């Protein structure tokens, strides 16, 4: 109703504007003045955030051209001679290229798949708990590890897996499992699931809480058992949420977080644990090859973006779910 009224007012305003425009300046100018007069306070609210985003997100994006230029210390972010695709070619020919890419892909795929399924299963389980008190207790406990910092998490892993003395390590022989290249990805994703599954299931629980109770009743009367209720009521309810989260996660196929991998790395497992983000850091800030590192970073961003667009496209076609 209100929208209608303001719409009519708006149209009326436009008409008067059109009439007067010939006399007073251009239409656009008048519109801007009027807009600012009405909304300058909202602009004042949002301008600081725009300034921060432009400075700290868009200026670095503009600086991405460094990937195509030879870095020049005197010219900073955007200077240097244009060299085209040279640094990308260097990356593709880098002896580390295949290893880094496959490490990144392996670790992130495991984490994506397991880290995606676990919260869904957990949410379906928690949703089955009848007593609201028990339910909220279980939720409280499962959220807790989410707040542990990465540094502390990695040190917990190390202490627990320490050979012969650690809580788990004493069952795993006398050599350090943290140094075993084959164990790196499993340790990574299992600890990720342990830490974040509880937190990430909140979103599904929210969706599940929207199920109309009458739907359960109806299914019950039709003779559905506990499992059928899950299969035919709960799962369809969370499917749209699952779709959106899947798309968003596809945007990070090559986006293994830096901190945890960096902290878990050691000289023994480096062949299985060097990923794009850690390599960018090593090349860029430790070896000072700024342009080369920027090129690798840009390659990474583009691949992620491509996967996001692809997943979005497929989801839109198949299930009408999309994020843009």
């Amino acid at each position: 109703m209100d929208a209608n009224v303001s719409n009519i007012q708006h149209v009326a305003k436009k008409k008067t504007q059109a009439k007067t425009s010939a006399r007073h300046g251009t239409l656009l100018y008048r519109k801007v003045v009027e807009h600012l007069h009405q909304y300058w306070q909202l602009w004042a609210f949002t301008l600081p955030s725009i300034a921060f985003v432009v400075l700290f997100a868009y200026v670095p994006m503009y600086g991405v051209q460094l990937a195509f230029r030879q870095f020049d210390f005197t010219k900073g972010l955007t200077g240097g001679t244009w060299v085209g695709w040279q640094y990308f070619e260097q990356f593709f020919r880098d002896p580390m290229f295949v290893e880094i890419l496959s490490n990144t892909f392996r670790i992130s795929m495991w984490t994506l798949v397991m880290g995606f399924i676990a919260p869904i299963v957990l949410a379906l389980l928690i949703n089955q708990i009848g007593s609201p008190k028990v339910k909220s207790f279980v939720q409280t406990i499962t959220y807790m590890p989410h707040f542990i910092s990465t540094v502390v998490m990695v040190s917990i892993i190390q202490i627990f897996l320490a050979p012969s003395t650690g809580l788990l390590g004493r069952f795993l022989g006398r050599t350090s499992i943290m140094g075993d290249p084959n164990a790196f990805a499993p340790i990574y994703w299992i600890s990720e699931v342990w830490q974040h599954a509880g937190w990430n299931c909140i979103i599904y629980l929210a969706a599940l809480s929207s199920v109309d109770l009458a739907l359960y009743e109806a299914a019950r009367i039709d003779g559905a058992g506990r499992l059928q209720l899950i299969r035919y009521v709960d799962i369809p309810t969370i499917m749209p949420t699952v779709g959106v989260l899947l798309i968003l996660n596809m945007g990070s196929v090559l986006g293994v977080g830096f901190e945890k991998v960096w902290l878990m790395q050691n000289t023994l497992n480096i062949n299985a644990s060097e990923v794009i983000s850690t390599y960018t850091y090593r090349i860029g800030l430790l070896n000072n090859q700024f342009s080369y590192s920027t090129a690798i970073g840009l390659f990474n961003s583009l691949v992620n973006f491509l996967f996001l667009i692809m997943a979005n496209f497929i989801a839109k076609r198949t299930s009408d779910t999309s994020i843009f």
Partner: protein
Amino acid sequence: MTSSMQNNEPITQATTVANPSNKKEIIAWNRHRHQDKTASDWVVDAIIALVVVVVLVAIIYPLWFIIIASFSSPTAVSIGEVNFWPKDVSFTGYAKILADTRIWVGYRNTLIYSIIGTAVNLLVTIPSAYALSRREFKPRRIIMFLFTFTMFFSGGLIPSYLLMKQLGLINSMWVFVLPGAFSVYNMIIARSFFETSIPEELRDSARVDGVSYFGFFFKIVLPLSGAILAVIGLYFFVGHWNDYFTGLIYIRDEGKYPLQNVLQMILLTNQTTQGSGNVGMSATQAQNFADQIKFGIIIVSSLPLLVLYPFLQKYFNKGVMIGAVKG
């Protein structure tokens, strides 16, 4: 659960949260479903209960173990005698931690960075969220696009680093405050809250009374938004408290290190023994002792969040649910 998932990206798809707020209805439903259970339902129930218990134990036990190990005899811990209850209680680990100045310097730094950082975060993010929640504010669409794009694409490490350098933020405490001052994700949560929870009638009647946007925001919106401010404030605070990356990349001076970077030095590179007061200890003893200190540090460093947790826990669901409603 890569980093992006930890942040719980906003869901642009609507999942309507029609809270079954009617408690009686739920209770009636629960009674109802326990009445006509079939045999197979009992089996399913038992399996579900079992799995839930296993999950709970898998989460609680490691945390419990850290607590009891932090004040048990380190030798008993290392030979596996500490399982469910502390053994040979000793507080030497904690005494050592109290005497370690590096931890307290890190603690102080992180407290300063987190408090100032969170304050700036809220100051920048909340008003912006309100402005962008106003439907009559037409430029909001393009501004939202400008913002959401940055969630999926960024300049990367080196351009950001060079920018900080040009701005003189390297080795400065402001690097913890300014670059992350605005969070698109948290803005979207707050915006959804304003859109769904502040009745439009309030704004209408305020407008009739000639109340400006400023007046409305400070006198009416903020007092009604306590829960969401708590949730978002907590998200920001935890983010600052747990931040390791910023210190690693931008801070040179150990005296300015935030807690997480100090922890990394102590916990992960085994520089446990400041002042090396371990005369007369064997290598194994020293290692066990170092482990005890580590358990203690894990507790001490997580203390503020552990203390805040029970008070804020009830808001979490709310916060994430709001984020789930169409962004």
